[in-house]
């Protein structure tokens, strides 16, 4: 038995160049160079202000005090790997899941386990810590990490993430391999007042099929605690990819994600964003339809109460002709919750015969709740089918009376209406237990309604 050395003392980290350099010490040179460049981009990029259209309703400077926030990062001092106990709250969430083809557990920005069915390993599927894959010199990671999908130039937080990301998931599905069960990532943030920067890189080769469920949880925090994610999704010709994000952080959690999907010819790249937890959630999602026959269903569901603030900024870029995208985001807002949806369909020049749809519906459950919905279209082709629509409504008194006339009390009737309203989104994506899990989480939230 050797005595464990006490952890090396070190200064508390901050968001600065030293931390970037220190983080990059154990990385291959291409990666540490990419980090340094990203840091320079970060410094050059101003913090988004409410004067910019895309951040008008989310005052990031006020809501997220970056000074004093401590990055959770992995460097030489943290050592590599080593099993760590899965926190109880995360364990409970994982126990609710149905079967998986593979599982990754990430705690405070560090992958503590990654498991994949042997049969899939044999078929060449790669599911690994993103950091480990980068260090191993995986050429796909080197080619695609923060280059084509979410590069540092994508904005202040994309730059910060590219400079400081500690770990995440790399998933590659080889040509023709079909996964019949989802891969699940279970993320947990435990340290109050910290910032976690993770990344997800998924590459589905031609004619492959994979679904990925990314769930993040945390306890309640008294100080603002940031979880930042950069999600890069690639579907090659004929591939089918589904990505689901379920955000169930505790109060005080600040979830900030940049997601980009790149769908090539005849591929399907669907997403579902579920926001139930945290104090603030902001998701920037850009779907790019890059080849004819490409298809993206984009689903969103949010249910806010207290003073929760959810902001979704979506765009559907039809670069190629003959592609389709269909967005449906639905939100219910109770108490003093705030929901913001800003979505744009951009049909690029030459993208003829585009089918693009965008719908945002909001249900206000209290006089104090606010929903802002800003759908938009930008069309530079003449032969397209596009539609967009937005609604903000209150509980329908006729519907409530109908339910009450069958014996449900008012609170029960309201719960039924809300569950049905949000549930419509879940029926569009039948994926191993996701609807059931999210429904249970919605029910738990409805059960505590005042």
């Amino acid at each position, binding site marked *: 038995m050797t005595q464990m050395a006490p952890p090396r003392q070190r200064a508390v980290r901050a968001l600065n160049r030293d931390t970037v350099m220190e983080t990059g010490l154990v990385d291959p040179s291409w990666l540490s160079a990419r980090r340094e460049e990203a840091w320079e981009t970060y410094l050059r990029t101003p913090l988004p202000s409410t004067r910019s259209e895309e951040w008008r309703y989310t005052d990031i400077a006020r809501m997220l005090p970056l000074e004093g926030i401590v990055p959770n990062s992995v460097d030489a001092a943290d050592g590599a790997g080593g099993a760590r106990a899965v926190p109880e709250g995360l364990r409970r969430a994982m126990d609710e899941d149905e079967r998986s083809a593979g599982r990754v557990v990430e705690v405070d920005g560090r992958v503590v386990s990654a498991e994949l069915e042997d049969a899939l390993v044999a078929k060449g599927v790669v599911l690994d810590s993103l950091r480990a894959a980068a260090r191993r010199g995986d050429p796909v990671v080197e080619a695609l990490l923060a280059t084509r999908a979410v590069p540092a130039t994508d904005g202040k937080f994309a730059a910060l993430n590219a400079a400081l990301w500690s770990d995440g998931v790399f998933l590659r599905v080889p040509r023709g391999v079909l996964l019949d069960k989802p891969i699940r990532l279970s993320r947990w943030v435990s340290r109050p007042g910290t910032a976690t920067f993770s990344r997800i890189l998924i590459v589905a080769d031609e004619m492959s099929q994979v679904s990925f469920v990314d769930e993040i949880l945390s306890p309640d925090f008294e100080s603002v605690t940031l979880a930042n994610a950069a999600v890069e999704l690639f579907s090659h010709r004929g591939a089918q990819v589904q990505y689901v994000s379920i955000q169930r952080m505790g109060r005080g959690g600040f979830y900030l994600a940049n997601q980009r999907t790149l769908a090539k010819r005849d591929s399907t790249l669907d997403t579902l964003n579920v926001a139930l937890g945290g104090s603030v959630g902001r998701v920037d999602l850009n779907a790019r339809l890059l080849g004819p026959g490409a298809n993206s269903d984009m689903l969103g569901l949010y249910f806010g109460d207290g003073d929760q603030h959810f902001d979704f900024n979506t765009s559907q870029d039809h670069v190629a002709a003959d592609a389709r995208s269909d967005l449906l985001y639905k939100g219910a807002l109770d108490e003093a919750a705030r929901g913001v949806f800003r979505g744009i369909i951009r049909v690029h020049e030459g993208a003829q015969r585009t089918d693009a749809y965008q719908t945002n519906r909001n249900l206000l459950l209290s006089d104090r709740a606010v929903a802002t919905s800003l759908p938009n279209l930008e069309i530079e082709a003449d032969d397209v089918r596009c539609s967009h629509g937005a609604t903000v409504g209150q509980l*329908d*008194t*006729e*519907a409530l*009376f*109908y*339910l*009450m*006339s*069958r*014996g*449900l*009390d*008012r609170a*029960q*009737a309201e719960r*039924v*209406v809300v*569950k*049905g*309203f*949000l*549930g*419509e989104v879940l*029926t569009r994506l039948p994926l191993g237990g996701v609807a059931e899990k999210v429904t249970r989480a919605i029910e738990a939230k409805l059960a505590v309604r005042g």
Partner: protein
Amino acid sequence: MNDRPILHVTGLRARVADEDSDILNGVDLAMRRGQIHAIMGPNGSGKSTLAKVIAGHPAYEATAGSVAFQGEDLLEMEPDERAQAGVFMAFQYPVAIPGVSIANFLRTALQARLEDGEELDLFDFQELLMERMELLDMEPSFAQRHVNDGFSGGEKKRNEILQMAVLKPALAVMDETDSGLDIDALRIVAHGVNTLKAENPDMSVLLITHYQRMLNYITPDVVHVMVKGRIVESGGPEVALGLEERGYEQYRRMQVA
């Protein structure tokens, strides 16, 4: 016991909340257990308002009179309490509840009737639902559809009848005022009422209808004619036949509001 009316309406006046004048101008009605009463009347006579006031629609308020159901003051009760006491209203225009299956909705409604802490047995519920659907010649898949969402007129009526069959009310108020009711929908309602009535002769039915043709399918014990918010004539089925021949005009001339 059986002499006491199951539904006793006396001097009922009611209006749309916040409006100045009453729609019901003193309605008197007594129904005994197991009876079928039909209320007929021209458009705007207030017959549908009576149904809504009995069920407790929040847009209507009673300004005078009383409604007793099995001796209890209905007007003091919330709509859900009325339902749990045994009142059921089949809606003229059933409301869509997107995302909620009929089966789930009915399960919630039955669960709501149980005491706190009691759990509805899911297996028993499935069995009950299947048995009720079989009774009404309905396809089991119907219960998986979302409540009235995208339903045809006939399907909406079918859904109302199924709910009635599962909830087994003591008093069913059928608001079938709609003059646009097609023959298919009319038959669904009539078949449902007759089947459930045969099963439970104690069930009382208040059938609100514009046209006599509904009474070709359901035979009432008592027919009331309502004009301008009052019942102006009551009698046996022959009253309806008289209406068929002479219309409502005779009452309009006779009555002053």
